[in-house]
């Protein structure tokens, strides 16, 4: 290639790169708001399964509290806690934690616990368990995850927080015992954490603006 050909090629590339960037920027401008609204709606909808039957008047997603590692909750990354209030009094806490001992990688769970320590809902947010076996823990595929509702650390006692095959109280899934074990253990650990840290969790509300620093 001669020098002028190099310059021509360079200019062509630059012009096309600029045009492509403009195209992406325009599309972003047009979709930005819809995407943000979708994400917010998805987050709120994904918290719903743990909120059923509760009375509350606070915005759930605004009361986010991040618990950085190390912590005693399941999972090695930061856990997220959403706090629910009615007339400024704590009603429940929703935990987003991950059970590390799933069959194929971590299982992200949403666990709702009422202020008295009773489970209001366990919901699988994300997992990579075997389709057709372990994935029946999903609320859309079976009622398995609903069996925890109304249970607490005294009902049954911590030894009963196992699948029936291991001498516990909870149903297993045919062909998949690793997944249920992981979820039951994570739920029990979250209940244990809540029983010792609930004051701390709800106290954070005063410092809502600098939650991140407070939690550290």
């Amino acid at each position, binding site marked *: 290639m001669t020098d002028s050909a190099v310059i021509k090629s360079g200019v*062509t590339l630059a012009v096309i790169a600029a045009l*492509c960037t403009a195209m992406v920027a325009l599309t972003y401008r047009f979709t930005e708001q819809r995407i943000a609204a979708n994400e917010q709606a998805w987050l709120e909808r994904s918290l719903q399964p743990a909120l059923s039957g509760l009375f509350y008047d606070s915005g759930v997603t605004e009361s986010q509290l991040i618990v950085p590692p190390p912590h005693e909750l399941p999972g090695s990354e930061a856990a997220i806690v959403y706090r629910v209030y009615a007339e400024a009094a704590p009603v429940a806490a929703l935990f987003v934690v991950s059970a590390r001992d799933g069959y194929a990688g971590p299982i992200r769970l949403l666990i709702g616990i009422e202020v008295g320590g009773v489970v209001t809902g366990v919901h699988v947010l994300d997992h990579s368990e075997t389709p057709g076996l372990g994935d029946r823990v999903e609320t859309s595929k079976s009622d398995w995850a609903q069996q925890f509702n109304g249970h607490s650390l005294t009902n049954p006692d911590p030894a009963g927080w196992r699948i029936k095959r291991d001498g516990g109280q909870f149903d297993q899934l045919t062909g998949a015992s690793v997944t249920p074990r992981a979820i039951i253990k994570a739920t029990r650990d979250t209940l244990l954490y809540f029983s010792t840290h609930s004051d701390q969790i709800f106290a954070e509300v005063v410092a809502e603006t600098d939650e991140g620093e407070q939690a550290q």
Partner: protein
Amino acid sequence: MTSSGIIERFKAGLWHENPGLVQLLGLCPLLAVTTNFVNGLGLGVATLGVLMASNALVSATRRWIRAEIRIPIYVLIIASLVTCIELMFKAWFPALDRSLGIFIPLIVTNCAIVARAEVYASRNPVGASIVDGLVMGTGFAMLLMCIGAFRELLGQGSLFSQLDMLTGGEPIRGIVITDGGWLLAILPPGAFFSLALAIAAKNAVDRRRREKRRSAMPRRARTPQA
């Protein structure tokens, strides 16, 4: 392009030159997302959109692009288009976007798209290139949907489940035939088996046609003499 020419192109895209069945291009998304019909449809439509738009842009700019820099330019165009399509999916079909996950951005690496840019759009006028994108994209999307439907039917015993990811309304369970199914079909090996069956079926049909034509020809040649 005449209408009979367009029909010929459609036959090529859907059957004789089908990107998935004959050219065996873009197999990664084809094998990975076709666990059910809706995923196949979603990725098929996204690929079709990118293919038509990239063919149009490549063809429109073909006079100014020197041969030495054509590949980086195709990559630029395709990557930008895929980003736009991804943003649109996030805005209008968030559930489907979540289900397809990484495979929407990965359309960039679908070699069927670069192949059409290089083989067709860089040498043909804009109109013909858009038609080419349409027929090749349709051929690819049809194959994704067929394999998706086949694997869903065998693996889950249902058809068209989760169509709500497109409509955005109430959950749709689709046509449920049996509860549960043959698990292997939705696991990765099932994808390879399904594609192999599809290719074998296509080849069998082609061979039947060829044999029929061969046995029909001599007879027609003989009739006038008889």
